[in-house]
């Protein structure tokens, strides 16, 4: 009897292969850790990097492939997801490659860092490649639990422990909110699929239904925590400062990209009740940018300042996202993707340079610890200047291109208020980024006594990649690719999205124009709950 109710869906393994590679590499890494010679992580590092490179290679051919689902609609492959996965894998690769020398300096070279970072990466990848709330949640938890452990990697240091505990408690709290929200969604629609949710919202009384509003509010809170929007940002500075620098780099890129990917899908699904959350999110976005930048101005620790800066940048990404949601014709998810990619390079690059200041167990990320870096490590210092200039958004760096595109989207979508707030924030932020630049060049007495770790090949590699990564010309193709990204909205417009569980025929294919085809590879009887 059971077999009649549930047909085992046929599975397209190519969609999930990247996750599988990353997860299995993590397992192999753990196995190596058992048999390796003492205190030598080289084999684990090599295997982990090879695994990530493999996942990257598997993802590349998937760019531009038609939107498909597998595992009974649980896993979704679309342009948006694949691009974000590429960013996530690249971010993980870059933050792993400079980790070993840094962790050796701080005497925390524990081999389990690598498997855990890989699993976190797989969770992040899963998060952006599903439109099912349950899968998003599973991905989120895989990501978060690994990150809680990683934040406390420096286990005999108080600050790191504090970071881990704080992150765990607040994160668990936020997860609970999210789960509660998902439960409400299930209660309303009888499904955890975002497509069904959206369809229900469009039909139902929508905004007049209190449960709907409650569900969306809970989802917003959950994702607001993950993406560090004000007022759910309180954990960010402490965790960024307390966690080891390589973990901070990983977190600032991978976790942020994943959270925004999922958030974008959820918000897009809630578009029918846009008038409910849009004003709230506009206020939150302005607050996020402003609070992030103002708080960063008064910090004495560079890592903490960059923590606040990441809050501000989350606000910038939100501007792009809101512009897209407000007017999908003018804004574009391409901007969101591009900015996240640019931010990944900028932030990992900056933290990679900061990892140099850790000498003899101590972290050393106050402004004074950067003094005279220009004399000691010109390449690193030069790169840091470049990243800071890019974070400010000075042309011709990629940071400028990203901001320019956000401005353009916001103006076009009729949100000039957000554009002006972003402009004001840009020059407010210039001050603390410039303070970091200045610290690098200080060469008074005393500055020469500051020590920093020697350069190493991994760091050099990461820095060069990140420095190349802030060259804008690279992002032009991504931007135009992203502009053609078939997004939820476009799919919904064509009606394809909603019919996806049952329909397998392409809708109105126009001659000469590439139309995304929805070809589910499974009968998909499970999702038709309503």
């Amino acid at each position: 009897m059971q077999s009649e109710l549930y047909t085992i869906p046929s599975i397209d393994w190519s969609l999930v292969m990247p996750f599988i590679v990353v997860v299995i590499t993590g397992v192999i890494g753990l196995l190596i850790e058992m048999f390796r010679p003492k205190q030598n992580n080289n084999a684990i590092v090599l295997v982990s990097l090879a695994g990530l490179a493999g996942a990257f290679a598997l993802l590349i051919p998937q760019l531009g492939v038609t939107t498909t689902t597998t595992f009974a609609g649980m896993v979704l492959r679309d342009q948006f997801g694949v691009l974000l996965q590429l960013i996530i894998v690249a971010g993980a690769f870059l933050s792993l490659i400079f980790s070993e020398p840094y962790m050796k300096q701080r005497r925390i070279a524990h081999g389990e860092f690598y498997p855990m970072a890989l699993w976190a990466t797989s969770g992040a990848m899963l998060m952006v490649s599903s439109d099912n709330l349950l899968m998003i949640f599973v991905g989120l938890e895989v990501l978060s639990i690994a990150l809680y452990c990683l934040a406390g990697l420096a286990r005999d240091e108080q600050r790191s422990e504090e970071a881990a505990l704080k992150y765990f408690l607040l994160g668990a709290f936020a997860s609970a909110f999210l789960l509660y929200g998902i439960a409400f969604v299930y209660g309303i629609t009888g499904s955890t699929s975002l497509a069904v949710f959206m369809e229900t919202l469009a039909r139902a009384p929508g905004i007049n239904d209190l449960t709907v509003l409650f569900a969306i509010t809970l989802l917003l809170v959950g994702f607001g925590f993950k993406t560090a929007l004000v007022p759910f940002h309180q954990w960010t500075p402490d965790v960024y400062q307390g966690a080891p620098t390589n973990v901070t780099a990983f977190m600032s890129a991978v976790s942020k990209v994943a959270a925004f990917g999922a958030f974008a899908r959820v918000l897009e699904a809630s578009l029918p009740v846009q008038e409910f959350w849009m004003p709230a999110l506009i206020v939150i976005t302005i607050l996020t940018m402003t609070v992030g930048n103002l708080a960063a101005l008064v910090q004495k620790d560079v890592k903490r300042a960059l923590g606040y800066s990441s809050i501000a940048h989350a606000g910038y990404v939100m501007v792009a996202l809101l512009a897209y949601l407000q007017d999908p014709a003018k804004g574009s998810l391409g901007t969101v993707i591009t900015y996240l990619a640019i931010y990944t390079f900028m932030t990992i690059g900056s933290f990679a340079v900061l990892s140099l200041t850790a000498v003899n167990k101590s972290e050393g990320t106050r402004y004074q610890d950067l003094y005279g870096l220009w004399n000691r490590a010109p390449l690193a210092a030069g790169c840091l200047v470049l990243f800071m200039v890019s974070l400010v958004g000075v042309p011709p760096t990629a940071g400028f291109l990203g901001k320019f595109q956000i401005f353009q989207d916001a103006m076009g979508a009729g949100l000039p208020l957000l554009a002006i707030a972003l402009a004001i924030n840009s020059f407010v932020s210039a001050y603390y980024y410039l303070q970091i630049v200045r610290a690098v060049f200080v060469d008074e007495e005393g500055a020469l006594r500051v020590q920093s770790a020697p350069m190493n090949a991994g760091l050099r590699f990461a820095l060069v990649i990140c420095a190349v990564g802030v060259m804008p010309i690279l992002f032009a193709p991504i931007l135009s690719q992203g502009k053609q990204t078939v997004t939820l909205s476009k799919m919904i417009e064509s009606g394809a999205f909603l019919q996806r569980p049952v329909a397998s025929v392409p809708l109105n294919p126009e001659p000469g124009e590439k139309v995304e085809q929805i070809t589910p590879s499974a009968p998909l009887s499970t999702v038709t709950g309503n």
Partner: protein
Amino acid sequence: MESTGFGIISGLLAIPVIGALLLMFVPEVYDKMIKGLAIAISVVTLLVSLAILQQFRPGTYHMQLVESVPWLPSLGITYKVGIDGISIWLIVLTTLLTLLSLVFSTYIKKRVKTYFILVLLLETAMLGVFTALDMVLFYTFFEVSLVPMALMIWIWGGSNRNYASAKFFIYTFAASIFMLLGMIVIANQHAQVTGVFTFDMVQIQAAVASGKLWAGASQLQNLIFWSFTVAFMVKCPMFPFHTWLPDAHTEAPTAGSIILAGVLLKMGTYGFLRFSLPFFPEAAQLATPILMWLATIGIIYGAIVAAVQPDVKKLVAYSSVAHMGFVIYGIFSFNHMGMMGGAYQALNHGISTGALFLLIGLLYERIHTRMFADMGGLKAKMPIFAALFLLAMLSSVGLPGLNGFVGEFLAMAGAFQSAQAGFFGLTPLMPVIAGIGVILAAVYLLWMFQKVFYGPITNPQLERIKDLKPWEIALVGVFVVFMFWGGLYPNTFLKPMEISVEGARQMALNPPNFRPTWQDRNLEINDKGDLVVVSRSADQIDLYQELEVVRPGQLYGKRQRSSLLVQENSSQTKEAR
């Protein structure tokens, strides 16, 4: 004329960058080689700029030597560069001043390599500002120039460098980011009106000239005008946005001061001529009284504050505030003579203030102080230096015969003519007050000369001081040549820019459809394959050459001709090739 591909202007922009890249591979220890190489590169740049000057044809307000290459086509951004009469002298000024300041910079001992790399990068950024014909490209160079300058102040600056460079960077960055927003609005507006999303300045100006762009959007035009103009006012700097300048000048190393005063400030005045007038004609006319009053206040205020400075560099910095007031005066007089004066005064200020900063730098290398209290009685010890300083100072004062006089006189006379005619709410009171500013300039500059060179020697350090070396005399001599040349035969400089400046005036003053454009030609091939006249005003160069500008506000001298032309074109005359 317009070529797709890279040409001589791209070469001009590329040489300093390539030079900077080369320098990166020279080890720091070979500092002589670094200095020599950097100077050689800037000589090559100067020669290329002279070649461009040679290729430049005066007598048209169209953009020349235009090169355009698609850059980010999906965003409507092209790499498009070109020159006209307004930019040509600024380009030569930039390459010349960069060379001279690099030669002076052989005094630099700390972090030689970084210093020369930064100056070369700064040179490309400045040249880029004056040649860019795409708004985003312009903004890019406009902002890029901030970074090397801020770093120069930061690394080689004086005691208060921290504050000065942060203030410099944030002040200018804050103002120009709103210009970026304004650019996006213009591009959106252009897309709405014409259906083409582009940041191409030539196309946008053509849309303004035909009156299409701002039709029914005068409020928006005012708003965007100010977003641009404030950015240029800060850059200029114009009262009340001048406060970053004295700090930046005082703390900057000498070469930084020369470039800052000589070229960076000109980006502001260039912006007025390139954007504020041609892009926002109605708004510019409306804003004229405000800007003129601010310039008037700036002239007097700058002069009074300069008079009480105890620091010689700060004094010259405040005198810049006053002198730039005259440039604004000329530009916003909307009078042919006045605008010529304004544009010319911008060049003169670069020469005379550049020379003053250079001389102060030479003195500073000897006595390591800039305070008047430590000077006095230098004339006996350094007679050559005193003579050269006197010349530079008199040029700054505006002594007839030297270059400063020509610019200031033309600017004030133009403003007076406009004011007498009662244009745009101007009153004759303004030029009268500004005239007092000229007298005040003589007062504080002569005081400065007196305090530095006369009186008893109080500072024992000065007893052993040596006069200028021959190469230093030669360095200052270049400035002196231009002071006399600009004062005695200004036509060399005025003639090539005349038509372009007049073009800017007419772009701002004429009614829609009578405004000239920068387009290379006004003919376009339509979809039927016919050659069609697109813009009525574009081919009026020949007409213009037959005219004399009689008085401000008058459109064209020979009414009949122009009306004839309009009639001809209003029926969209098709011309066979």
